[in-house]
C-alpha cells in the first residue's frame, strides 16, 4: 500500500486533542517553573491549566488559543513525517488510558500500524541510568536482545546508557520490536548524539512522543515521558539506577499503575546497583536474564528467549572470560588466565568475533551475558 493511499484512512487526530497538545507545548516554559507538580497540572482541563500556570500571559495565550488552527498542526506533522493518533481514536493504545492524564495525541515516527503491532505484542520497559557500569550496559543490551527476540516489544527512553543499550539490543534481535518514548518532539533526536540510534529505531521500530514536532526538551518533560513508558509496558525493569535516578521514577509510576516491577541485581557495593536492590527489597521481581522477563509476562516456561547461537567456549576461552569479568583490563586478565600474550590476544579477538566480548573505550573488554 502506498503512502498516499494509506493517508486517506490514516487516523487523524481530532481538533480538540490537537489543541490540547498545542496548549501544553505553548505552556512548556510555564510548566518548567511548576515542574514539582507538573503531573497533577497535566491532569487539569485546558481552561484550568491556563488559569493555573499562565500568570500574566493569560490574555495573550487565550487569544492564541482562539487562533489555533487544526489544519496547520496537521500540516506541521505531515511535514515532519510524523503520524498522529489521538485519545478519541480506537487505535490509541488502551494501556495509556490508565494514566490520570493520558497524552492527548501520540506523535509517531515509524507508522501507526507498527505502533499497533508493538502494543499488541506486549511490552516490557527496560530503563536505567545514563552512566552504567560495563556490566549494567551489557545486561541491558542482552535483556533487550533476549526479550525482543522472543517477540516482546522493548520500551525505553532512548537516553544514553541503559536505555540506548536496551534499544540497540532489541534492534539486534531477529525481528525485534522496540519503542522509544522521547521527552520532546519525536523528530528531534534527544540526545542529539544518538541520532543514528534514533534513525534505526524509527526505521525498524517506533519513536513516540506526546508533544508536537519541533518541541525542544525541558526538564518537566522527562517526568511526563516516564509515565508514558510505565503505562505502555506491562512490566518495567530497572537495570541500574543510582539513588536519585529518573529510572526509579518510572518504576514508581509503574507501581502506581499496577504494573509489574523487575530489577537486575548487581554488586551490593556498586553505586548504580543501589536502585535495583532497593526495588528488589521492596518486592520487585529478580531479573537474571531474558528468561525471567518472559516467565513474568507469560508464566513459567511458556516462552523461551531465542537460543544462544554463540559457539561453545573452549577451556582457555572460558578461563579468559572469567578473568575479564573481574576486571576488563586485558594485561591482568591474560596473566590470570595463564595464556601467553600472542595466544591470549588472538583468543580475545576470537571471543569478540563470536559475540562473547565487546571492546570498549580504553581497550577494556566487557563480557556479553
Amino acid at each position, binding site marked *: 500500500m502506498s503512502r498516499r493511499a494509506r493517508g486517506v484512512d490514516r487516523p487523524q487526530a481530532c481538533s480538540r486533542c490537537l489543541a490540547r497538545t498545542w496548549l501544553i507545548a505553548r505552556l512548556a516554559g510555564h510548566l518548567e517553573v511548576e515542574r514539582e507538580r507538573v503531573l497533577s497540572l497535566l491532569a487539569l482541563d485546558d481552561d484550568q491549566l491556563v488559569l493555573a500556570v499562565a500568570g500574566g500571559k493569560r490574555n495573550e495565550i487565550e487569544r492564541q488559543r482562539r487562533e489555533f488552527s487544526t489544519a496547520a498542526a496537521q500540516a506541521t506533522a505531515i511535514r515532519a513525517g510524523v503520524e498522529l493518533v489521538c485519545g478519541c481514536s480506537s487505535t490509541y493504545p488502551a494501556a495509556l488510558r490508565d494514566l490520570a492524564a493520558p497524552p492527548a495525541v501520540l506523535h509517531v515516527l515509524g507508522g501507526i500500524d507498527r505502533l499497533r503491532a508493538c502494543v499488541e505484542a506486549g511490552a516490557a520497559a527496560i530503563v536505567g541510568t545514563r552512566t552504567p*557500569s*560495563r556490566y549494567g550496559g551489557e545486561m541491558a*543490551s542482552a535483556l533487550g536482545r533476549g526479550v525482543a527476540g522472543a517477540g516482546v516489544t522493548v520500551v525505553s527512553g532512548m537516553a*544514553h546508557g541503559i536505555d540506548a543499550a536496551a534499544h*540497540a539490543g532489541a534492534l*539486534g534481535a531477529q525481528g525485534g520490536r522496540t519503542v522509544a518514548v522521547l521527552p520532546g518532539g519525536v523528530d528531534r533526536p534527544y*540526545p542529539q*548524539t544518538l541520532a543514528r540510534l534514533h534513525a534505526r529505531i524509527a526505521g525498524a521500530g517506533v519513536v513516540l512522543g506526546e508533544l508536537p514536532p519541533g518541541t525542544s526538551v525541558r526538564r518537566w518533560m522527562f517526568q511526563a515521558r516516564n509515565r508514558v513508558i510505565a503505562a505502555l509496558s506491562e512490566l518495567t525493569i530497572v537495570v541500574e539506577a543510582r539513588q536519585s535516578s529518573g529510572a526509579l521514577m518510572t518504576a514508581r509510576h509503574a507501581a502506581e499503575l499496577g504494573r509489574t516491577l523487575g530489577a537486575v541485581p548487581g554488586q551490593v557495593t556498586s*553505586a548504580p546497583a543501589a536502585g535495583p536492590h532497593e526495588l528488589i527489597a521492596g518486592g520487585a521481581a529478580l531479573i537474571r536474564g531474558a528468561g525471567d522477563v518472559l516467565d513474568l509476562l507469560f508464566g513459567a516456561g511458556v516462552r523461551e528467549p531465542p537460543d544462544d547461537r554463540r559457539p561453545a567456549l573452549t577451556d582457555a576461552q572460558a578461563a579468559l572470560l572469567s578473568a575479564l569479568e573481574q576486571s*576488563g*583490563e*586485558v*594485561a*591482568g586478565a*591474560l*596473566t590470570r588466565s595463564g595464556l601467553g*600474550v*600472542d*595466544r591470549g*590476544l*588472538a*583468543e*580475545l*579477538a*576470537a571471543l*569478540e*568475533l563470536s*559475540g562473547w566480548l*565487546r*571492546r*570498549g*573505550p*580504553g*581497550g*577494556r573488554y566487557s563480557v*556479553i551475558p
Partner: protein
Amino acid sequence: MAGVLARIATFAIDGVDPRPVSVEVDIRSGLPAFTIVGLGDAAVRESRERIRAAILNSGYEFPQKRITANLAPASLRKAGPGFDVALALAVLAASRQFEPDPSAPVAVYGELSLGGELRDSPGVLAVAEGARRAGIARLIVPRARAREASLVDRVEVAGVRGLREAVAAAAGAELPPPPPAPSRPPPAATVDLADVRGHQIPLLALQIAAAGGHNLLLEGPPGTGKTMLARRLPSILPPLTRAQALEVTRIHSVAGLHADGLIETRPFRAPHHSISSAGLVGGGSPPRPGEASLAHFGVLFLDELSEFNRLALEALRQPLEDGRVTIVRGQRALVFPTRFMLVAATNPCPCGFAGVEDRCTCADADLRRHQRRLSGPLLDRIDLLVNVGRPVEAELRGPPLTDSRHARERVADARERQLVRLEETGATCNADLDARLVQTRVALDDGARDALGRAYTGGALSARGRHRVVRVARTIADLEGRERVTEVDLLLALSLRQRSAGEEALAA
C-alpha cells in the same frame, strides 16, 4: 676598457638538495663599489661587509675599483652566508692576488668572520654530494665540517681554518692534514627495551610495528609509559644502510642540528603539540625541513595527539602517503623526504581514565570533542592500536621481558622475508602494501580467511580496515617465519586493530 673576470664554483642549498652556483666577479676601473647580483637574500647582501673585512684582515688588499659579483644561475634564489668564501676567493682571483689551480676543478663553501676565519656552516654534506655529482675534485670547507664532507667519496676535502688557507688550497697547495678524530665522548646511555618492565602487549605491538613498518597508536592513561615505549622503537629497527645514513645526516646538517660525522642511529623526533604545520612538515622562508623530514628513516612521535593543531595533523597526510612532502614557493617546488614511522600517543579520553569504572570524569561533550579530534584521515594511516596500562607491582620488580638486540634480530629477519616477497613491487615492507598488493601478495590460510570474513560481515571492519588487518597479520606471520597467514595471526592482528569511522564495535 676590459675588466678582469674570475669564476669560483660553490653550491646553494635548495631545501635539502645542492644546486651548483658559479660565483663570477668582474673588476674594472671606476668609482669604488661592490655590488652582488643574483637573487641573494639579506645575508648575501651583507656578505659584502664580511668579505671586505675578512680580505683586509687576512693581509690581502681589497681592490678600490668597481666590483660586480654575480651568483649564477641568476634565477635561483640564494639564501644564507655560505657564499662568503667563494665570493672572497673570486674577488682575490679577479684582482690577481692568487691564481686558481687550473688542473683541478675546485669548489668552496662557508661563511666568513670579519677576522677572515671560516665559520661552521650547516649543510656541508649536501654541498659535498653536489660536488661529487658536478665532478669537482677538491672541496674547500670550514675545518669543523671537514669530517662531515669527507663522508662523500671521490671528492678531496680541504678543511680550512681561515681565508689564507682557503686561498692556498684553491691554488693547489698541499692540503692541511685532516683534523684528528674528535675524542668521542663515552657513548651516551642508549635506550633499550631491557629498561621496560611489564608492558607485555605494548612490547609485542612495538615489534610488530617495527617489523612491518606500521604506524602505531598508543592509547592509555597518563603516566603509564607511552613515551618511554615509543622512545625505544628506533632501537629495534634495522640499522641504517650507508646511503640512508648519508641522507639522514644531510637533512640534519642542512637543518643545523648536527655536529659531526655520520648519523648512524635512526632519528627519533618528538615535537611538542603546539607545533605549526610548517614546523611539522617543513616550510618557512627559506623553506627548511620540518620534523617529518628530520624523522626521515626514523620515528616521528606525536605525544598527546588530540592536542595537536588540526591543520598541522592534516598537513601530515601527504608525507605519510608519499614518503615526501612538496613545498611550493612562488615558481618552484621543493621536495623534502619524509619516510618516517609514525607513533602517536593519546589518552583514551580528556581525563585519561575512560573505561576505568567511575574514574572518568569527562562530560559527554568532552568525549565527543576528543573523538572528533582523533578521528580523521590521520588515523586511517595508523595500522596498529595498543592500549598501554599500568604495569602491576610484580612486573615492576620482575626481570625485563626482552631486550633490543633480541627484538632487533627478529625484526630484521621479518623484514628480510618481506623484501624477498615484495621484490619488484616497489614496496619495501608490509605497511606499504596497497589494496592490490594485499590481494596478490598475502596468502591467507582457510582459518584466517574465515575469521576475516566473519569480522567484515559482522561490521567490525570497514573495507580499509580490512586491508589494515591483513597487512598487520602478514607482519605477524613474518615475525613467526610463516609463509601463510594463519587464523591465530589474523586474530592477533584483529585484537590490535585501529578502529576507524564507520566501524561498529562487534555484536553491538
